[in-house]
């Protein structure tokens, strides 16, 4: 028995001891006997014909073991990187899906596209040899912006993708929306850009691959959020390695945020190369290499229109977006700006008609895929910006217009006009909570005080809903998913009563070792210390889809909950036999199996022992052992939501925006570990604030060079950019997950960009400013202030 730590507690994290003492085990920390070093040679051009590669000088360089190119890939008849999601246009015509070769063939399509892999004894030798490779490029003009890419005469990335349009996707009833617009008393319009972002987990990507000729098995250690999916995609579809001959391990991983969620070409190349050179190979990306090879996020250009009646009720919402895919389709690329964007355009409002058209466009940039929030921050940003625009044009208070349109708590479950049905929520409750926590009523006093110091103060609101806990499989399948979206867990009870859990989600900062142990501790009544969580290794864990889309606790936790229920059920059978009672009379509570209404009982440890030492055991009807497994495929997404309020101060002299207060009230369902949830909210908010104020991936049109190509040119939020935030939860329970959880990993990033930009616009509204594109850098604001041609000093 001992120390049961259950749901709602905040124990110190199990994983912290190793991280605090420098004993984490990240991929770059691993060494294998005989290990060699691999280096990728990447295209310096955004767009070029690859005319030939002369390997001779590189091959002759000291220490070089192999130089591999696209020709070798072709000769070995290997597949290209698969896209995990196929979308179609309104007529059902599937998206254009050009191959994404693991090493470029015939053409390169973005700066960073891989053209060769050099293997040498040491990293220094591999780098030196890479310099000696002669690559003959015929440079073509690049196109990097979506508006430019779809113009007639634009450079074409693929011969069979006219106008660079991969898919012309739509959702919603266009005709109904048009009718509603004709009846509107007011139509608000807004054009905006959702800036391109680079995820920047602090650990750069890395991989080690090894081939053992004795067993004909491969091992790949990789910085991945979903090792089983890598095994499946890479083994079955790219390299033709049988699943049982391939082990993929993602050990400690230093942050992911989506960036490490995809099957990358580097993983396939290094695994293939390891067998060719018959030695382990290690590749570790530099940060700058990550900038041109980690998948980017966001990058939308959008025109939106909101139709309202004379009271400010939303009648219809129409959105046209051009979404940048980059040079190829990444694992989930086409799914993000379509299925994870359009269905969330309803937000927390009762808008009866919505139409969304998304043109998914190829450009000469790093492929774009899911980055924290993925699609939902983009949807929230459009919606929450245009609501502010409408409020200001119609002279309605910004909180009031939101309140008038919010789905009332009693109206749940709520069917939106764009596919999804929200099961539970309380947007008004979140809004009310946030208004109080943010002390909105005294904002005027604070604004006047700022004005006395010559500063403009602004307040911004954002309410949102998201779809997370990715799954259900059947629904996802209808939307084009080529894989399932369930999760699995195995609960292994040892003869002594300790527990090892094998789970298919992946822990890269979210605290799974702690949260999942709490669930087991509570459900089985075993000591928190006596539960270990195993993840990230395809040889140890049965199967799993990994961690992304806030699905770990929602889907993985549900699988775990189901598996522990099975353990209890079997334990009852054993107890019934040992206590000579009927199974229906056995109760399980606080780690004890007892016969109802008596004091006869067996502890969990005694039952575990009996299962493994079956001297007195009904072997005819029950197998020895106490280990149970469950797969869980949810019936719906979960729908966290909330309200965020940002308060900023703008210095008109320099254009600097300072975030002075930040408040968030989020509905994340049941909170298993409040400390961890709060930490997730903090981190998510700061990533969203980063997008709003600092971060921007900028390409040079024409050359396709990434101008913000390192941490020197890409501004990451630092400790002194942030105030102390106030975060709280106001939860309604999810109606269909076993514990009522909804997920919390992305809510911060979804709610915050609109809150911050709405605050910036509010601060500048007296100058006639109606919109500011992200990031609201000092330069951008300063130029806006100059163009406002109004006295810059505050009155």
């Amino acid at each position, binding site marked *: 028995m001992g120390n049961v730590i259950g749901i709602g507690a905040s124990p*110190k994290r199990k994983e912290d001891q190793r991280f605090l003492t*420098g004993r984490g085990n990240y991929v770059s920390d691993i060494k294998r006997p005989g290990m060699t070093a691999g280096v990728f040679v990447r295209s310096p051009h955004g767009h070029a014909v690859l005319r030939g590669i002369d390997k001779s000088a590189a091959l002759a360089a000291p220490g070089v073991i192999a130089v591999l190119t696209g020709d070798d890939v072709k000769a070995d008849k290997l597949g290209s990187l698969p896209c995990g999601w196929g979308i179609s246009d309104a007529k059902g015509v599937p998206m254009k899906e050009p191959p994404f070769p693991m090493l470029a063939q015939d053409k390169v399509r973005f700066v960073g596209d891989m053209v060769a892999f050099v293997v040498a004894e040491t990293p220094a030798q591999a780098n030196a040899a890479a310099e000696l490779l002669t690559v003959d490029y015929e440079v073509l003009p690049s196109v990097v912006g979506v508006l430019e890419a779809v113009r007639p005469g634009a450079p074409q990335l693929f011969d069979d993708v006219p106008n660079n349009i991969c898919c012309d996707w739509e959702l919603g009833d266009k005709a109904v929306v048009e009718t509603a617009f004709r009846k509107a008393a007011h139509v608000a319009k807004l054009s905006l850009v959702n800036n391109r972002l680079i995820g920047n987990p*602090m650990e750069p990507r890395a991989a080690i691959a090894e081939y053992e000729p004795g067993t004909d098995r491969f091992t790949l250690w990789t910085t991945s959020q979903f090792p089983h999916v890598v095994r499946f995609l890479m083994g079955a579809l790219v390299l033709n390695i049988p699943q049982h001959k391939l082990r993929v391990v993602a050990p400690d991983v230093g*942050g992911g945020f989506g960036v490490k969620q995809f099957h990358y070409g580097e993983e396939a190349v290094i695994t293939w190369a390891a067998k060719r050179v018959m030695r382990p190979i290690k590749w570790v990306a530099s940060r700058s290499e990550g900038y041109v090879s980690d998948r980017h996020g966001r990058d939308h250009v959008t025109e939106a229109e909101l139709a309202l009646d004379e009271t400010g009720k939303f009648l219809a919402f129409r959105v046209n977006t051009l979404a940048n895919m980059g040079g190829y389709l990444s694992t989930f690329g086409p799914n993000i700006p379509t299925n994870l964007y359009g269905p969330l355009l309803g937000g927390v409002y009762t808008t009866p008609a919505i139409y969304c058209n998304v043109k998914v466009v190829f450009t000469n940039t790093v492929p774009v895929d899911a980055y924290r929030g993925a699609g939902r921050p983009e949807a929230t940003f459009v919606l929450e910006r245009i609501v502010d625009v409408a409020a200001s044009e119609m002279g309605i208070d910004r909180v009031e217009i939101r309140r008038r349109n919010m789905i009332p708590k009693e109206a749940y479950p709520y069917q939106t006009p764009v596919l999804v049905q929200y099961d539970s929520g309380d947007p008004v409750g979140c809004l009310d909570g946030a208004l109080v926590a943010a002390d909105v009523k005294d904002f005027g006093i604070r604004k006047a005080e700022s004005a006395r110091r010559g500063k403009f103060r602004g307040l911004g609101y954002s309410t949102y809903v998201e779809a997370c806990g990715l799954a259900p499989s059947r629904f996802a399948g209808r939307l084009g998913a080529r894989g399932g979206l369930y999760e699995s867990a195995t609960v292994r009870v040892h003869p002594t009563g300790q527990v090892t859990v094998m789970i298919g989600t992946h822990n890269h900062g979210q605290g799974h070792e702690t949260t999942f142990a709490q669930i087991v501790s509570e459900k089985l009544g075993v000591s928190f210390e006596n539960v270990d969580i195993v993840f990230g290794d395809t040889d140890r864990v049965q199967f799993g889809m990994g961690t992304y889309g806030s699905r770990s606790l929602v889907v993985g936790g549900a699988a775990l909950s189901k598996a522990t229920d099975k353990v209890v059920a079997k334990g009852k059978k054993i107890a019934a036999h040992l206590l000579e009672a009927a199974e229906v009379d056995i109760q399980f509570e606080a780690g004890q199996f007892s016969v109802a209404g008596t004091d006869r009982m067996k502890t969990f440890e005694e039952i575990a022992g009996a299962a493994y030492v079956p001297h007195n055991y009904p072997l005819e009807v029950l197998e020895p052992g106490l280990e149970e497994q469950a797969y869980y495929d949810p019936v719906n997404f979960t729908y966290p939501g909330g309200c965020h309020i940002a308060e900023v101060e703008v210095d008109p002299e320099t254009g600097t925006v300072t975030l002075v207060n930040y408040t968030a009230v989020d509905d994340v369902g049941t909170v298993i570990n409040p400390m961890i949830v709060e930490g997730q909210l903090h981190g998510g*908010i700061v990533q969203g604030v980063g997008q709003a104020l600092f971060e921007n991936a900028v390409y040079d049109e024409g050359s396709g060079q990434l101008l913000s190509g390192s*941490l020197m040119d890409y501004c990451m939020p*630092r400790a002194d950019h*942030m105030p102390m*935030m106030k975060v709280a939860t106001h939860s309604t329970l999810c109606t269909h997950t076993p514990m009522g959880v909804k997920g919390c990993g992305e809510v911060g990033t979804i709610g915050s960009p609109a809150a911050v930009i709405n605050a910036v616009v509010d601060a500048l509204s007296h100058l006639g400013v109606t919109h500011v594109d992200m990031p609201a850098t000092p330069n951008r604001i300063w130029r806006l202030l100059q163009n406002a041609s109004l006295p810059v000093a505050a009155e």
Partner: protein
Amino acid sequence: MTVQISFTLNGRPTTIDVEPATLVTELLRETLSLTGTHIGCDTSQCGACVVHLNGLPVKSCTLLAPALDGATLLTIEGLQGAPGSNQLHPMQEAFREHHGLQCGFCTPGMLMTAVALATEKPVLTEADVRHGLEGNICRCTGYQNIVVSVMAGAAAMNAAKGE
């Protein structure tokens, strides 16, 4: 060509031959297998590699190994209470108590910077800490719990000193 350097590493005298162009991060991680010092960037921006050189925090990714000759070097592996034990330094305890870490990748660098801050200035304000952490990027925590941890850790270090 190699040069021989002698220095004190986490309290132990160490003599080793290095290529003059070796970075301290490489020496620690590759040669000495002390992988607690992390590499998060190639432009000295992230602070994942912070160690103490003669008692002061430095980014070891921009330091050449010959500079260690005659110096005292402290890495995350040498920070704990008793060597070889699981006992934590007060700053490590504070990070654990206040959830000042998530993925743990920035953590060794953060801790080394934090200990140096607390050593330099006994009473730290929130502004001091935020300013003092400018050279360390954390992508996970949003900094709030790190700031709280550093202030608590500094207070604990002070209390321990006063005893």
